[in-house]
């Protein structure tokens, strides 16, 4: 096994530990941790298994298994990041709509209070 798969295995382990720590401290919600854990486990198994790495190399028509590992790694992270971007965009839209709605409701409540106050005074 070359040095690169060992580095990838170490990085995968670090990612798994970081994600689990994030979940335990409630910094990452469980539903968002699944994709990262899945990606890290896949990378870890590819890095540790020579046969899996060779199989990935054959699948990608590459004689260099470490190049195949890099391609698979890149693809996995692109997918996970794309999914995250989709979620973040959706949440941002929902957040903007919610903030606008809160502001409008506060405004209308304030107007109603003023109306009631003026009627009470009259």
């Amino acid at each position, binding site marked *: 096994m070359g040095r690169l798969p060992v580095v990838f295995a170490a990085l995968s382990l670090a990612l798994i530990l970081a994600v689990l720590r994030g979940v335990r401290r409630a910094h990452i919600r469980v539903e968002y941790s699944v994709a990262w854990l899945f990606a890290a486990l896949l990378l870890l198994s590819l890095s540790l298994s020579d046969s899996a790495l060779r199989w990935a190399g054959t699948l990608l028509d590459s004689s260099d298994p470490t190049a195949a590992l890099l391609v698979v790694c890149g693809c996995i992270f692109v997918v996970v990041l794309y999914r995250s971007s989709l979620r973040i965009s959706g949440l941002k839209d929902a957040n903007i709509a919610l*903030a*606008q709605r809160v*502001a*409008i409701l506060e*405004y209308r409540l304030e107007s109603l209070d003023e109306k009631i106050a003026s009627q009470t005074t009259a």
Partner: protein
Amino acid sequence: MTTRNPAPGKLLILIPAFNEEGAVGDVIGEVHAVMPGVPVLVVDDSSADGTVTRAREAGARVLELPHHLGLGGAVQAGYRLAFELGFEYVIRIDGDGQHDPRYIPGILETLQKTGCEMVIGSRFVAGNGVHFGPMRALGIFFFRSVLRPILGKPVHDPTSGFVGVNRTALGVFSRSFPLEYPEIEALVVLQRRRFRFVEVPCRMRPRRSGRSSITAVKSLYYIVHVLLGVFVNVLKIERRRK
């Protein structure tokens, strides 16, 4: 220029503001002087200074956003409220004093007479040209050229935020409005709906306080962001045609 006021409850002056305590009070005072009795709504985009206090002291109503949404989010919040309250026309001016409120009656009159969905206060029509730095002038020229074939007619001042809309456009913008750099994309949103716009001449002044949100570093990001937004909206136009 006429200063005839519309019927009560028909027109709202919308001022999006973010850290504009140095100018917003004077702007509101000028609006009241030009359009007495017309309600002024300041949308405060979570300012850290005394913008809200100054606006209230000057006699405006304030819509306070719970956190910073950016220009588009603030303007859309104002449009949403105006639409829900039943206003017929909304004219948006900046809170930094760059837009001269004396041109509001002209924009309102054009909205009413032409029936166009949107009227833009333009720095470049009827010889009202102003001088910018070469980069900004190049940017405006670039966007004019990009928008010309999309809109089917020239637009002289696509980045102007001095804009009046009628209730039809208000309904659309309250549901769908570009959130970050809204002026240029809003024109393409209008085109998607086959709405009409017209430009009227107006003079703009130097800002009285604060700094422009568009710095030199942000300019490139601005161009890419707006181009992408325009492109996406053009794709929506094409899909609608099919």
